[in-house]
Structure formats: structure tokens, C-alpha cells
């Protein structure tokens, strides 16, 4: 099946072209060109846009807007985004990071999507043109959303001490995730946890919240004893994937261990 690439100067024109059967949006191409190389015949046309808004990063008053075509390596070295650099650096090896985009990561099925896990903990908004959707809702509906182009993501850049991220992998330094965890904590001056957002990767086919653990942390201290109830319910609602890296059973077993280490680190 011959493929074709169609390039549009504006997002609107690219959006319109995506309506055609067999058309798929091309971000960095690390998943979608791979699918074509593997013989995915449902794909006939790549659509991309060179709209400058897709490539821009702005950080104003602590709120970041990152264009969907911005790559992981660009985020990793951006001076105002140091707090989330670890999540960008967790994606693939150097060549993949130079290609992998924020937009593509939002659509990457588990075991991929490490950066989207961080965005979920940060309560990011996903922008599709002038429409902004909370990332929770966006991720739940992302398959149905096929056709609309994500233009950017927007979130408050966290204070480094409030945000924690870990990617657990067997092959160092760039193996595929066993799981990834991102946590945003709001702690009172005496250390009592006021609120927590915990996002998990590989614990379902897309990034998900550990809602029960989030609630169990409220009012507790970040000590082994304080977090124990949260760890006990960390797996609630999860449906981990099984792949060549780990079984669902293994992922479920090690989740509380890694969440505990991350919270106490």
C-alpha cells in the first residue's frame, strides 16, 4: 500500500485532512511510522502540520504551555521545565527523545506514555484548538477522540519538592517501563499531607490515577506508618498490562513497593 505524507501550514487544514479514511496524524513518528513499517494497512496517509504554535513553549506566571510537537529532549533541557525533566528523560534513548513528541506521548499505549503519566499527576489541560479538556477526561476518551489534533498541553509547573517521578525499568538506562509513577503533593508546614495526585503508568492500558491511595494520604505524615494505608490500597482499580517486560501479577506486586520508596525519598 503506497503511503503519502500531507503537510499543512495550519492546524485547521490538517484537522480537516484527518477526516479522510486511512489518515493518521504524524507527530514524531516513533509509533506511527513504526506501525507503517510493520505493515499496518489501515494507514494510507500521514498528516502533519508545521503550525509554529505546535513547536512553542511558554512559561508565564508559573503556568507552562507546551506545543504538541515539542520533543522530549527539548523539554529535558528547557531551563524553566527542570521540575518535569526527569519524566521527559525517562522516554526512550537519545534518538527517540529527539523525535518523541508530547502529543504522541498522550496517545501512546502502555507500556509507553511515561510523560503522560507526569502530565496526569500535574492535572494538565489538553488543548485541541480552543477547546481545553482536563487530562483525566482526555485520557479516558482518547480513542474516541480520533481525528482531532492536540495542539498543546498546559499545566502549573510544580515546585520541585512537591513533584516526584519514577520510571521503573529492568534495562538501565533506557528500558521500557515495568511501571511509572508521578506524584504531586501538597503538604502543610508541619508535614501533614493536604492533598495528593498520584498517576500510574502500565497499571492499565493508559495512564490512570490511584484515587484510593490519594485519599488515604490526606491528613497523614510522609512516614512509613503514615503512608501504609495508602500503599495498601495503591492497586485498587488497576488492571496492569502483561508484556515481555513483566506480568500483570508482577506489576501489581511491586507497585506498593515503588510507590512507598517514591513517597519516602
Amino acid at each position: 500500500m503506497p503511503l503519502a505524507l500531507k503537510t499543512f501550514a495550519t492546524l485547521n487544514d490538517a484537522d480537516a485532512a484527518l477526516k479522510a479514511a486511512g489518515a493518521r496524524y504524524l507527530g514524531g513518528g516513533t509509533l506511527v511510522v513504526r506501525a507503517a513499517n510493520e505493515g499496518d494497512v489501515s494507514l494510507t496517509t500521514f498528516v502533519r502540520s508545521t503550525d509554529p504554535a505546535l513547536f512553542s513553549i511558554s512559561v508565564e506566571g508559573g503556568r507552562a504551555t507546551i506545543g504538541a510537537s515539542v520533543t522530549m529532549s527539548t523539554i529535558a533541557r528547557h531551563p524553566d521545565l527542570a521540575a518535569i525533566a526527569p519524566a521527559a528523560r525517562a522516554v526512550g534513548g537519545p534518538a527517540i527523545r529527539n523525535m518523541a513528541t508530547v502529543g504522541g506521548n498522550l496517545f501512546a499505549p502502555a507500556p509507553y506514555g511515561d510523560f503522560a503519566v507526569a502530565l496526569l499527576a500535574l492535572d494538565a489541560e489538553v488543548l485541541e484548538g480552543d477547546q481545553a479538556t482536563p487530562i483525566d477526561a482526555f485520557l479516558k476518551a482518547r480513542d474516541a477522540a480520533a481525528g482531532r489534533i492536540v495542539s498543546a498541553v498546559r499545566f502549573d509547573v510544580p515546585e520541585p519538592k512537591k513533584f516526584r517521578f519514577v520510571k521503573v525499568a529492568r534495562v538501565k538506562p533506557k528500558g521500557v517501563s515495568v511501571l511509572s509513577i508521578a506524584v504531586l503533593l501538597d503538604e502543610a508546614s508541619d508535614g501533614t499531607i493536604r492533598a495528593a495526585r498520584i498517576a500510574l503508568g502500565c497499571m492499565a492500558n493508559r495512564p490512570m490515577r490511584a484515587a484510593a491511595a490519594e485519599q488515604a494520604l490526606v491528613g497523614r505524615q510522609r512516614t512509613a506508618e503514615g503512608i501504609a494505608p495508602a500503599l495498601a490500597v495503591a492497586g485498587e482499580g488497576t488492571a496492569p498490562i502483561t508484556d515481555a517486560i513483566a506480568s500483570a501479577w508482577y506489576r501489581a506486586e511491586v507497585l506498593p513497593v515503588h510507590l512507598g520508596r517514591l513517597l519516602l525519598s
Partner: protein
Amino acid sequence: MGVAREEKRMAKVPIQFVLNGDEKAEFVESGSTLLKVLREKLGDTSPKGGCHQGTCGTCSVLVDGELRLSCLTLAETCEGASVTTTAGLAEGGVLHPLQRAFQEGFATQCGFCTPGMIMAAKALLDRVPNPTREEVVDAISGNICRCTGYEPIIRAILSAARSNSHHAA
């Protein structure tokens, strides 16, 4: 008939970029990967096709100085860019310091991973002329070698950096 002919004509698109310092202009099938265009159209077989999935790294090239996997890059997205491959590193028959270090340090056995390893190493040394061992390991973490056990490759890259003769080509 008319439509079919038009589609056939539209399947080829013009593309221009600089390959190892030389300007190239070609008609390629739309949607072709850079790897395919380099090897089959332009005769530069230094980037290898290993997995075509982004996992082995042997197709690595530099696009405007950035390490990319040519198997997952569409050639048309490189319009106007400067592409560097291992074939462009030697100057006037004199091997690039990285090539020499690989040869002298037995960092090449079957050689299939070598062009990707060398481009990944070049991307690192262009940015970080005196890398730590950890930085070298990270730089080649997207490249698979089934022969050497990696140690000779890491040593060769460190020795090319130390030889201090490295310069951005």
C-alpha cells in the same frame, strides 16, 4: 484512467537536503523513510536497516546535528535539512577520530551496529567533548550490539574524546 495517472504522478515528490555536505535533489515516493531514501536512492548504505522499529539504533543519523532514527523519519520531513551519516565522517581518506578509536579498540566485530554507535557517539561528543562514562552509556543506550558486550565501544568513545583531536565535522 486519468485519476489513476494523476495518483501515480503524485506519488513522487521532490525533496532537497544536504547529505554529508553535498546538496541532493531527488524525487521520492511520498511517505518514504529517510533510511530508504539514503540507501536506495542516494546509495549511502552506511546507515543499516536492522529492526525498522526504532529499537536497534543502527540506522541512526544526524539531522541538523540531532541524532535521529532514519527508519522512523520520513524523508520529506528533512526537506532543507543537513543530514550526516557515518559515510561522511572521514575526510580525504583520513578516518574520523571516532572511527579510528573503534578500529583500534576492537569496538567493531561484525560491524552491523557500528554506524549507529558512531553517530550516537558523535552526537554526544559534539555537545559534550569530555563526557563521563555514564554520559557515554546513556548516549548509546538506544543502540544494540550483539557482539562486543559494549565495553570496547564505551572505551573507544572515551578514548576518542580523550585524544582531544575530536572536532565537530
